[in-house]
């Protein structure tokens, strides 16, 4: 074999080897891409409650949604077939909040909301554990964060008498704020006029 052909063969072998190594790196990169947390996560968790709902009574529920223009909450009636347990009913209310208003009011929870856990304590305290993705999709601001939190709290307390107060956790931990505004360090008790000054 001529000397030039040998050199060419060596170069080609080198290129092939480099390509194989690069392919391996690319494959590994593709393998480590995290799954995108999506709406389905929340839907899957919450629809479990919805599936169990047929066992309970069918009633008119009052849900609250934020109205940023009015700086207040607006009530919306909806027929709900309740689940048996209070914890499942809490999930149903959250599912309705994720579904959004039927009358054009703003959202309290984004459609991508993911509820990691719900726990109702004996003293009436509900612990809601949201994913960090849920909170990052809530529109920031003092009014918007406070109205979003109270829309959830008031919707739960109005429809489920066992709920006395709500504690919001993120990824299983206490947090200072939603996005730098609403103070989440304490419990939230229901208030239908959350940001109105006391008369």
């Amino acid at each position: 074999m001529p000397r030039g052909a040998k050199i060419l063969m060596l170069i080609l072998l080198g290129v092939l080897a480099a390509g194989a190594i690069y392919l391996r790196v690319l494959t590994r990169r593709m393998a480590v891409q995290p799954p995108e947390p999506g709406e389905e996560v929340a839907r899957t968790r919450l629809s479990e409650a919805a599936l169990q709902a047929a066992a309970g009574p069918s009633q008119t529920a009052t849900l609250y949604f934020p109205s940023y223009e009015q700086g207040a909450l607006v009530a919306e009636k909806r027929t709900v077939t309740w689940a048996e347990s209070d914890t499942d009913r809490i999930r149903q209310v959250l599912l309705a909040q994720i579904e959004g208003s039927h009358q054009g009011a703003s959202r309290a929870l984004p459609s991508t909301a993911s509820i990691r856990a719900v726990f109702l304590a004996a003293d009436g305290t509900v612990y809601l554990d949201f994913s960090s993705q849920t909170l990052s999709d809530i529109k920031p601001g003092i009014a918007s964060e406070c109205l979003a939190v109270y829309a959830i709290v008031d919707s739960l307390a109005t429809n489920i008498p066992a709920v006395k107060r709500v504690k919001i956790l993120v990824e299983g931990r206490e947090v200072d704020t939603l996005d730098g505004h609403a103070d989440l360090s304490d419990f939230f008790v229901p208030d239908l006029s959350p940001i109105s000054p006391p008369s």
Partner: protein
Amino acid sequence: MPSSRTALRPRRPLLLLAPAILVGLLILFWPAQALRSDNFIVYMPSTRSVIPLEVIDQVKYLPLVPVLNAVGKVGAIQERRDTFKVWFGEVQIELRLGDRRVRVGASRLILAQPVRKPGGQWLVPVEFLTRALPELTHDTIEYQVGMNRIFVGDVKPISLSVRLDPTTNGARLTVQFSEKVAIRTAASNGKWYLFLGNRPVQPLEPSYHFQDPYVSGLQFDDQDGIPKLIVTPAAAGLNFYPTLAEGGRILLADVLKPPPPPPAQAPGGESLPAPAAGPSPAPGVTPVAPESPGGATGPALPVIVLDAAHGAEEIGARGRDGILEKDLVAHLVARVRLSLLATRKYRVLLTRVGDANPPFQQREVAANMVRPAAFLSFHAGNLGITTPRVVVYSYRPSSEAGAEEAAKGPQLFVPWAEVYRSHLERSRALAEALQQKFALIPGVTADKPAVAPVRALRSIDAPSVAIEVGSLTTDEDSGALTNANFQQQISNAIAAGIEAFRGGTS
């Protein structure tokens, strides 16, 4: 033959030159690599560890084993070419080279950057500390993004704020500490060093730059594990006179032209030993003051604290046109500051300077230490479709859980989470006064004062309000809010509102 020898001769120097250039380049760059001194400090309640930091593709990396040794004890290690397993107590940590997934015990973390192994050492991005250490140590972690230090467990770092005031023949540097510090001074290479003792320190800003003929900068440094401030004079031959006041909570340092005038020792002042290669001690103490209008002296003016929300990676709300809340409120605060200083009735303290995001606790410490006449926190967010719009909030708790404790009367420790209670009425009066002035601005919708659990106001020991301008959302352009005329009118209204709140007196 002689002709072929002649043809080969010129190649020899070339063959020698190539290795010589290579060796020269190695000599040139080798020390630069070896002398890199970036370190990361891990502060524990009783110890601190200095860990060398590697920056790869602009990402900060730390060697895993030294980090684990800094916070506990590493057990067995199992290393293969592409995988690394290490036991920390009962927990097994598993890394894979070039992989962003890290297994910590039963959980799997996905880091933003992959694990690296340059020079045979397994490196993890700094993010690993905040994600994995709480699980490994079961302790709280305090880490400010971008900083080269982390506090693990029950470590309460001292915070500090800095300001520089002109004096008749020099400048006065005032450093306020959140707790008493012991300071040792030294001078080296034309700079003054202030060693801050053994306590961990977390400054609001890593460095300060001044447009001043006497002091050009102040830098915090703890790269060797010893917290210190480095003062850089703007010219040679200046004298430096440090003094401690208020029992070690305040450092007053005069930078003066030589020869120094004979200063008077103020009561309560505590002289510090002068830097070895610096001037002789000649302490002079005056009451510490935040930024005064035009450096005016005389009776102490009331302090107004302006708090621009968010900063750094915490951007807050975002407009459709890309305007960020952190930038919008920083601009607004700059205008309000000038409007307040122009009245010559107030001093102004800012809780953040530049694009930093001090945690709430640091902002509260900075504000409460100056006992302000008013605290104003600035925000922008979603206020519906009407714009421009302004709402003033005073604090209202989300529950009355702390009311019983507060009702018990004086307590051993200050209940900072409940401190707002003693200022509720005054805060609402301040909100009312500001809203009345905002309502006078043509074209601006000023809502009635509102109440809300605004985190920024909870632990402020003064009348405090949050001012939210809107709407800043991804559905709207923010042109109305960035308008200079709008911002100036808001600033003037705030100055007038504070004047009205204080009853027309300073």
